[in-house]
């Protein structure tokens, strides 16, 4: 099914998705962080802010993801993934 979709359609599908549904190994830009202030600050101090480019490396136990931000690998919990929205870098 996916093979039938062209690149433009896939790009459109991935605009503004939450991180739980974002693809792995794809360059992403963080669009929105609808998380509590303390979590946003913690993410920011780890380098993940709105506008930051990053990549999701893998899924983890418990439904989380490991994100590659700058040189850092940051594990993000499943609950947080749904509060972060990103788009695929074109």
């Amino acid at each position, binding site marked *: 099914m996916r093979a039938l979709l062209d690149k433009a359609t896939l790009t459109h599908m991935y605009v503004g998705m939450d991180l739980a549904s974002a693809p792995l190994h794809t360059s992403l830009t963080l669009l929105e962080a609808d998380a509590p202030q303390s*979590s946003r600050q913690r993410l*920011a101090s780890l380098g993940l802010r709105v506008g930051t480019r990053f990549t999701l490396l893998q899924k*983890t136990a418990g439904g989380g993801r490991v994100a590659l931000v700058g*040189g850092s690998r940051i*594990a993000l*919990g499943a609950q947080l993934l749904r509060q972060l929205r990103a788009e695929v870098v074109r």
Partner: protein
Amino acid sequence: MALTEPQSRNLNLLASSPQLPSVKACCHTTTDAGAGPEAPVVALVGAPNTGKSTLFNALTGARVTMGNWPGTTVEVSRGVWKATRSAASCTCAECTCDPDEKRLELTLIDLPGAYSLDPHSPDEDLTRELLVGVPVAERPDLCVVACDASRLANSLYLVAQLREQGVAMLVALTMLDVAAKRGVQIDTVALSAALGCPVIGIDPRRRAGLEALAGAVGEALGEAAPTPRRRPDTSDELELDDDRFGWIAAAVEAGTSAPSEQPRTWSDRVDRWVTAPVLGPLIFLGVMWMVFQITTVVAAPLQDLLDGLFTGPVSAGATWLLGAIGLGGTWVEGLVVDGLIAGVGMLLTFVPLMTLMFVLLALLEDSGYLARAAVVADRLMRSIGLPGRAFLPLIVGFGCNVPAISATRILPGARQRVLTALLVPFTSCTARLTVFVMLGTIFFGEYAGTAVFVMYVISIHLVVLAGLVLRRTLWRTMGTEPLIIDLPAYQRPTLRLTASVAWLRLKGFLQTASGIIVATVAAVWLLQSIPVQAGEAFGEVPVQDSVYGVAAQAVAPVFAPAGFGSWETASTLAVGFVAKEAVISSWAQTYAVADPDGGAPGALGTAVLNSFTESSGGHPVPAALAFMVFLLAYTPCVATVAAQWREIGPRWTLFGIGMQLVTAWVLAVAVFQVGRLFW
């Protein structure tokens, strides 16, 4: 080993200048670095996992003293840093400085890891308070900020905030080897200029670059604090953050070069398996099983050996010696042999167990696996308000509660440590197992194994239920923070670091626990030696006629609703407070049975069965079950109390003792009252 110039290049430092900018002074420009209260205070700060504690241990060695900071359970380490500045840090054409003048003696404090000055936990709050909250005169003379070179941008947020405050500081770059493997190269000269403070490359794990660091610190202490970095005239946090990140980005761009594409590291490849949805938890359980096995199976023979040594040759030797000087058979012999030697012996039997535990913890921490374990177990532990890594101390608790309490140090938050330390005593340790096996054999016969298994099931449920109750009453907001963990690169643990960390923790345990254990064992002996009636000699009184026995008789009715209200049983609970292993020998002593091991249901078994039958009004089985539940839930032993005292302070320790006693009594009564309807 000093970090020499060629080594600097190996650590991908682009030292384009023959000398680092921060190290430009002659040795003669030394600061007043005398010993004692006049010695300058240097604070070691930085984000977690930047090698800060490793650096602290490397700089202070065994001269560390640990202690709880007043008002918190957060531990701040303080040590003496006796350093010799390298000749490379001297600008004399030909250094002729007196070697004594090159020596620095500083007070080094290791503050809890913090990503920023915006606290998210009591640990970070303490760091902020000590750095910028207290009056200027009470602040450290210099901050050494440990920054991970492999992810420099993330380490510099704290630097940006400290620069805004005009704090005298110096950046120590760690993890340069990891950065090099990732293709990141760092120009310390350019980075130093961009940050406005000295930058030194070090490798604390291999003790490289420490002399250069000492030189830079000595130099920085002699200079005035830098002018605070100007920030936008606004109180809007977003705008301030934008400014900081812009400053950080400019510094990183000026001082580093990195490939545009991040290469896949072997840490990433390992993480594919270790944190994977299905395999990750299995690997985690395997690691936990290994820790549990090593701390119980490997340590057990060593414990037995030490126990045999103290109860055998050492006690016999002391008895002979006291006899030779005319004190044989007196109360002095009782005090020395049954009080002091027994107390010290008991303490020392924990040493192999604690050593193994601390070594394993250090290995797991140093390798970077603990951060992964936290990710894998997070969802499970979050249900009771704890982070994933709290699983480790709870698992260890099934071996022995004492190292498990100490293992709560791996938890990042003070409240998490307190809650876990309060839950650990509900895990059924192996000492309780011996009593369960004995009672199971006496009362449940061929179903003894099932009875013991039920105790473990109850133990797990107690941990979960107590966690839920405490979370919903005392710490309602705990566990709601989403998981955000910075995963450090895997590293091969170093022998020196592992041994050093394990020794420091073991020493801390012995220093705190020794006094409490020896004092309690001696106190129990004393109470058992004091007669309540005239005509009986001190130290030669039957247990039931001693202060101890009479007190047990007074307390015994409290346990009547639980079916074990006889003084013989109640007194074993008091002895069990000292150590659960002593419960069986206490029964043996009370019933004057020759074989104190109590493993088989012989004469001792019959005596215990009769006592329970009598005290329960003919319902010995539910009474025994209630006793086992009480034994499971109340205070494990005095060594555990000592460990709690050290880790979470007296207030929470006393709260825990009270909570466990109430839980134990309520459960025991419930088990007996319901059980007597069926048995």
